[in-house]
């Protein structure tokens, strides 16, 4: 094909760059069953590890007898805390500044806690041996209620630190207290409430849930005794962080640890943390000299590695009689389980919770969070959100509805009145966050018009009248949510993990023939990074996306990165990719000018080439320039065409959206049908609209699951009663609603390509939208706040409490 006959649009299209609905590169292997996930890794002589776990939520471990297990043919080793003490690994440091038992040391603190690690030559034999390990427990009193954790009667969970008055985040006021964290201006907020015309105060719990990717956590550790090197394959959302942590807690120097994250079967936060299984597999490989595989089963996954939420938020709003917000206060008890192993930026024990003022112009605000220990699993993660952002969005969006109801205003109208206005951006919130860009009113207006909001309210009104007359047993609820996220951690001045600044990076090499490779420290778990990073490069460099290999998940080849979570891949690594491209482009410009025998300033970039200004017939394509970079660079210039960029973002990004849902509730069965769900998202520049829509669908489905059914539930004895798919709600295609998606585009002014991140928005906005819809259905009957999950039972119970079954 002769390039000169192509139109500019055709030249743009063939790059498949930013804005293209490019089909995914990764799918070719996945649809043929040729993905390479951790459990597919098979090494010669590989052993299998399996855990002995505690049936008790709180007990002393009086005796562990491993002799019968060790005598079983095929068993190679049984590790206990005593074994791990010989290598100083019975406990490990957590990302949150606490320590955590790897294997039970003296007592167990939650059900299914790891007690011993059996290693055998076959996974069936390992499971047999688990049954042969004898453990004697002496049961202790249990507390799984965070609201009782700081009472005198509460059992002390962490005897190892019971006398410590100072924790990783300041003073501790009770043996079960972890930290107090506050933000905002208490005096100003108190004054706003003292002078308020109207106030609301509501206890808004967000139950414990679990991210539950379809692939559980797993790893293969292979220690080479001769080289003294460890290779670790694992389900890691942040491979470099795992390498650094492994080096910090072991005698292995970091350059002798090779971490590989192959294809990952979903993460949603579950695969950010470092878990006892990884440590035990590593130690077992060092002890045995053979590779050791550890694969969680589903019960282990739901009950031990990670959890999310468990936030109990007493939320208050103050407003004028005509509906202008004047203040916000929130006091939260956060249940962190038995160890504070939350995977979040080290300085932020409550994550980014102070985004709780949401999308509204609230002049005075204050929040306080107390973290506590209970007899529940540790390892709090952000289930498809920036840490604690979905909790914040849920609290403010529920509170907005409650206030609107008290004021007698429509929830959408009340929001519209208080949304930050387009001309106020960049906007500094009462908590000090600098929102980068937004046009909230336009988004909400578009959402309301598209769904026919006024008509829906009229229909609801008619149905309410019919219900009161006894003509129907169905209630209609309309859910409105307007959310603002805070993602893309982060500026290194604000965010670090164990002291490592939260920048991210990209390394790009353009080959002589004009194809190339980009390596990054992020790690896709389904987001399609191999497809979308290449699109950024295609637009930035004018080289076809098809010619760019994107490689992640190898700590030896990728520049250091902090990983993929908190929607940070596009805001941070996407920016690094663009900036690395711009370094390459600057060099390409000099080469082009040299080839065209003009001054550097006399050429300009045009889609896929540099052309002489004012003379577009004279140009060099990027392909020609790539060849020249290895063939005839200007005198004094280094050959080659590659660059690396470490990008420290100047600010977070603030994606936002307006969601509206409609539900129909049968008051006699509690059955709730989602009639309609409309999601308008603004994620700034849209790299691949097809992938964005897919992310929204998936996030909304997770939001649906959380709002309508998910809960990791414990009984009073600390038994986890929802740790299998029989009890933990994952919607099938039958229950899952149909999604309507839409968008506006407000680019981020500080991001090189204006992108903000999108994958987590639907979870953040979706949960309050569903919950508001259910609550809205009952509000006209005088119902107080109905808590999630809104399963049929609880919804029926809400109707029962209102006397609707009489």
């Amino acid at each position, binding site marked *: 094909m002769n390039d000169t006959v192509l139109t500019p649009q055709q030249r743009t299209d063939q790059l498949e760059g930013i804005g293209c609905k490019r089909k995914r590169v990764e799918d070719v292997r996945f649809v043929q069953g*040729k993905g390479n996930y951790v459990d597919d890794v098979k090494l010669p002589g590989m052993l299998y590890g399996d855990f002995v776990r505690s049936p008790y939520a709180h007990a002393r471990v009086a005796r562990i007898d491993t002799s019968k297990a060790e005598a079983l043919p095929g068993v190679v080793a049984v590790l206990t805390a005593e074994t791990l003490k010989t290598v100083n690994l019975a406990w490990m440091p957590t990302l949150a500044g606490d320590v955590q038992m790897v294997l039970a040391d003296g007592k167990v603190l939650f059900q299914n806690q790891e007690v011993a690690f059996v290693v055998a030559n076959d996974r069936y034999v390992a499971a047999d041996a688990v049954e042969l390990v004898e453990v004697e427990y002496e049961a202790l009193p249990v507390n799984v209620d965070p609201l009782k954790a700081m009472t005198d009667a509460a059992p002390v969970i962490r005897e190892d630190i019971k006398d410590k008055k100072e924790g990783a985040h300041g003073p501790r006021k009770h043996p079960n207290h972890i930290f107090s964290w506050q933000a905002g201006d208490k005096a100003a907020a108190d004054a706003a409430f003292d002078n308020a015309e109207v106030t609301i105060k509501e206890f808004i719990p967000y139950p414990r849930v679990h991210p539950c990717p*379809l692939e559980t956590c797993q790893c293969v550790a292979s220690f080479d005794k001769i080289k003294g090197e460890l290779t670790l394959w694992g389900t890691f959302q942040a491979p470099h962080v795992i390498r650094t942590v492994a080096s910090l807690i072991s005698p292995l120097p970091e350059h002798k640890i090779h971490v590989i994250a192959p294809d*990952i079967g979903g993460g949603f936060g579950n695969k950010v943390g470092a878990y006892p299984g990884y440590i035990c597999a590593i130690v077992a490989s060092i002890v045995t000299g053979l590779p050791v595989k550890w694969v969680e089963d589903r019960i282990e996954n739901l009950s031990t590695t990670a959890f999310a939420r468990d936030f109990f938020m007493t939320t208050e709003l103050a407003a004028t009689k005509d509906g202008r917000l004047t203040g916000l206060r929130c006091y939260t008890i956060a249940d962190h389980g038995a160890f504070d192993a939350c995977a979040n930026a080290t300085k932020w024990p409550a994550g980014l919770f102070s985004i709780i003022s949401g999308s509204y112009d609230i002049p005075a605000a204050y929040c306080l969070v107390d973290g506590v220990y209970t007899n529940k699993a540790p390892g709090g993660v952000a289930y498809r959100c920036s840490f604690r952002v979905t909790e914040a969005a849920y609290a403010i969006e529920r509170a907005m509805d409650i206030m609107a109801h008290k004021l007698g205003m429509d929830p959408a109208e009340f929001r519209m009145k208080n949304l930050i206005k387009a001309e106020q951006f960049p906007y500094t919130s009462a908590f000090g966050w600098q929102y980068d860009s937004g046009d909230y009113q336009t988004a909400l207006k578009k959402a309301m018009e598209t769904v026919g909001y006024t008509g829906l309210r009229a229909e609801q009104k008619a149905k309410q009248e019919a219900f009161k007359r006894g003509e129907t047993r169905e209630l209609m609820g309309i859910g409105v949510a307007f959310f603002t996220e805070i993602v893309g951690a982060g500026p290194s001045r604000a965010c670090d993990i164990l002291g490592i600044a939260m920048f991210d990076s990209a390394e790009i090499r353009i080959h002589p023939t004009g194809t190339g490779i980009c390596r990054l420290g992020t790690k896709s778990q389904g987001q399609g990074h191999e497809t979308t990073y290449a699109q950024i490069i295609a637009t930035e460099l004018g080289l076809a996306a098809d010619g760019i290999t994107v490689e992640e998940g190898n700590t030896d080849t990728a520049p250091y990165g902090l990983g993929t979570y908190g929607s940070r891949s596009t805001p941070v690594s996407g920016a690094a990719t663009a900036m690395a491209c711009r370094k390459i482009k600057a060099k390409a410009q000099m080469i082009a000018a040299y080839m065209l025998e003009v001054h550097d300033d006399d050429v300009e970039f045009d889609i896929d080439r540099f052309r002489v200004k004012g003379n577009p017939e004279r140009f060099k394509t990027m392909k020609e320039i790539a060849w020249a970079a290895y063939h005839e660079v200007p005198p004094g210039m280094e050959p080659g065409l590659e660059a690396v960029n470490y990008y420290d973002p100047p600010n977070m990004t603030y994606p936002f959206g307006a969601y509206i849902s409609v539900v129909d509730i049968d008051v006699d069965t509690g059955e709730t049908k989602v009639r309609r769900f409309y999601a308008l998202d603004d994620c700034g520049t849209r790299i691949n609209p097809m992938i964005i829509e897919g992310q929204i669908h998936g996030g909304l489905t997770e939001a649906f699951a959380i709002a309508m059914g998910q809960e990791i539930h414990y009984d009073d004895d600390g038994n986890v009663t929802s740790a299998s798919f029989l009890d933990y709600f994952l919607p099938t295609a039958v229950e899952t609603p149909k*999604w309507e998606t839409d968008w506006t585009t407000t680019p981020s002014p500080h991001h090189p390509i204006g992108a903000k991140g999108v994958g987590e928005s639907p979870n953040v906005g979706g949960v309050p939208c569903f919950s508001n819809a259910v609550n809205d259905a009952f509000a006209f009957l005088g119902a107080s706040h109905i808590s999630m999950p809104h399963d049929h039972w609880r919804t029926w119970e809400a109707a029962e409490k209102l006397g609707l079954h009489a």
Partner: protein
Amino acid sequence: MAKTRISLTVNGREVEELVEPRMLLIHFLREQLNLTGPHIGCETSHCGACTVDLDGKSVKSCTVFAVQANGADIVTIEGIAAADGTLHALQEGFREMHGLQCGFCTPGMITRGYRLLQENPNPSEEEIRVGISGNLCRCTGYQNIVKAIQYAAAKLAGATVQEAAE
């Protein structure tokens, strides 16, 4: 543990192997035959990541013993494409309609769709949703999986395929 000899057909190939009577079919396929396409997501028959086609039925291979498959004819995701490597309409449809993200449920989902379209070559959207309700997906929200199966149904029926995914 004593082993039992089984012989069966897997993806058109005759296979004869020794297995422990307690070995699950999914482990036999993945570890003994190196067919790592089917995945393990729950081990309790709920998620369907391990779905394979056994004697013309979709089964969850995590709750079938390998010895129960003695004499059976099994198709896994590795056996769905044509012998010359041409992708099956379902495999093409999943890519065209963005019916997958992390890819972990995909082999089971496509293998289920393969049987569904033989049971019902022209399913309605509701029939597809019910037909795949034994297979969980955590990434896509199913909407594009439904479109992918519709795409394949249309293509297999020789119809012109509708517009691509958003």
